[in-house]
């Protein structure tokens, strides 16, 4: 399961998450969503540190964050 889950339909491609990610794993994708925006995309789920910066700056509440816990 993804650590960084981006709701592509909610994303407006503002790029704020890309600018704040300390490990640089977010990019603006080449795809278009249904409303014509190119959504943000995570390039390397395993590198996510769960710092939450992307979710904090996202004005569209498009990002959810998860972390594995050992059972």
């Amino acid at each position, binding site marked *: *399961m993804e*650590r960084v889950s981006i709701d592509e*339909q*909610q994303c*407006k*491609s*503002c*790029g*704020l998450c890309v*600018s*704040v990610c300390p490990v640089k794993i977010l990019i603006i994708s080449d795809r278009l969503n249904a*409303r014509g*925006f190119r959504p943000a995309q995570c390039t390397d789920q395993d590198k996510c540190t*769960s*710092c*939450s*910066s992307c*979710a*904090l*700056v*996202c*004005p*569209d*509440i498009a*990002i*959810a*964050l*998860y*972390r*594995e*816990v*050992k*059972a």
Partner: protein
Amino acid sequence: MAEEMKVIYERPRSWANKVTHYCPGCTHGVAHRLVAELVDEMGLLDKTIAVWPVGCAVLGYEYFTFDSVEAAHGRAPAMATGIKVTNPDNFVFTYQGDGDLASIGMAEIVHAAARGWPITVIFINNGNYGMTGGQMAPTTLLGQKTTTSPLGRTPQTNGFPIRVAEMLAQLDGPAYIARVSLDSPVNIRKAKSAMRKAFNAQVRGIGFSMVECLSTCPTNWKLTPVESMERIRKEVMPYFPLGEFKVAQGVL
């Protein structure tokens, strides 16, 4: 693989999960999200009534799952007063922009603050009238170009920007007044903690509270969302310093 996923961040329950009408990168969405998170975390969903302004947030009620009313331009504090008086146990907040709160609604906000009754105000300061196309606001900085100050705001013709937080903090009525910024993850965290204090000031019955949020308007500022965040830090914060201007006893 016996691995479970722990939630680090998910959408708040108070959020109606619709795509907002705000422009890409506009920090209205951030302020909305903080409100929704706090309503969830503080268990206020059933008691909340939001009062929405005229301005970009006019459709704010579309995006939340609590009760809402839509005020006339600038009158949200008066309407909130009417609502709070009828049901004092409810949680009542207004959400207002700088034209709404600091221009046409200046009388209403000052007197609501002076009465000091426990209502909470989320004040979005983005230095212009966003919805109507970027005209000059009471908070527009000197030199800032807008559609009604095309050569830049000058004190001779347009007067000076109003520091609302400092002004209201002079009154005895308010319990909590702060200015925060929505420009970065760290400041957004601080903004949320200020809003929590503001909400608490009402929930604990201490008094009136307001959080002024330095916000962006990438479309009318004609900057990218990322550049807009930088502008807050470089140009806006020097005139509108962040901080808590009034913290009454018991606010936490």
